[in-house]
């Protein structure tokens, strides 16, 4: 629930604004194909993939850069 007038009384509140709902296509990783190159982690502009190659769907906006950069096509973009 937002405060009256959208006043922000606690710092670091940006993370409360889940942006995953903006997504049209969702990246799905096939771990069997993955070669651990970390390209997806490096290229994700929203820091929504960690070093364990786990995708944070609360913030991933579905831009598809990870799928584009994956050298072994381990990430597939699937329509939500």
């Amino acid at each position, binding site marked *: *629930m*937002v405060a*009256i*007038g*959208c*006043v*922000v009384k606690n710092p670091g509140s940006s993370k409360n*604004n889940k942006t995953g709902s903006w997504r049209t296509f969702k990246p799905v990783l096939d771990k069997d194909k993955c070669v651990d190159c970390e390209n997806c982690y490096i290229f994700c502009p929203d820091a929504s993939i960690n070093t364990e190659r786990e995708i944070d769907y609360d913030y991933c906006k579905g831009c598809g850069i990870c799928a584009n950069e994956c050298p072994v096509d381990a990430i597939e973009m699937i329509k939500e």
Partner: protein
Amino acid sequence: MVKEVMTSNKAVAEAVRLAKPQVIPVYPITPQTTISEYLAQYVADEKIDAKYIKVESEHSAISASVGASGAGVRVFTATSSQGLMLMHEILFAAAGMRTPFVLADANRAISAPLNIWNDQQDSIAQRDAGWLQIYVENAQEALDTTLMAYKVSENPKILLPSMVCLDGFILTHTVEPVEIPEQELVDEFLPPYKPEHSFIDTETPMSIGTFADPENYLEARHDMQVAMDNAKEVIQQTCDEFAEKFGRQYGLVDAYKCDDAEIIYVAMGSICSTIRAIVDELREAGEKVGLLKIRAYRPFPVEAIEEAVVNCDKLAVVDKNVTFGNGGALFTDIKAKIHKDAYGFIVGLGGRDITPKEIKEIYEKTKNPVKEVTWIGLKEE
């Protein structure tokens, strides 16, 4: 208690003096100018302990008002016509940020053609900004309403800014006797503003005027709608409290001889005085007629209007504005919400005189209607 003869602009300035705002950002514009002049004088004479900010435009006046109100102090500003148009963007921000200050609007026509005279197009054009809008009929009501506006706006259930709308020249530049309330009584009625939801304080830091994505925006706007709905009750309560303290009773609407009326005029602002005189005249001639003065235009007091017009057959809705392509704003609101036979009349745009003869013509045209919306006083080719 002191009684003085003064203009409505002076009456507003007196109310502001009594309300003790701490910041007054204001930019002069006809016919509001004397409000800003009186307040500058009061601040210079130390009758008001406030920061008077000489801004470079109305956009800055309202921006400074939002900033100061966000900082947690009581704020007043005033404008008119093109000045209110320039404020448009920040009017919405003021309401959305829930900054509860008061603005007096000296109602004046909008360009083009350029015109400095009275109609109510300027404030009507801002009706969707999320501000409470109260239209006053005379100088005493201008003073009293300005005081009440602070109490309503600052109520934690409301936290929306208020616009006190007074007809340019007809009220702003004509004098009437006005009772000036005692400061002590005003202090009891309107204690110092204690901001709760937003204020600048290094001990409890917060951000105001922030971003809201689609996950939050809808709720933020709905909160404003709830506050507007609450305002109907709070305005009435505040009016009752004011009456108890100062002996003058106001409400969301003011019904005059409506109980047994077959036709009821519905109008806002100074024109109600003229209509009331015509109602008396028509009553003497045996006509069953009344007047419903709308004080609160936003929130729109549907229940209070329904109650007042329950026994009548027809409504003659008088608008000093037009929403092009549809009729007057008050008329279209009445048509949408009140299940009565209603006719709209556009009058007095750009300061055209509204004569008793024309008020009677409105009555005749409601009794024997030809069309739904009629412009009164148009010159024949």
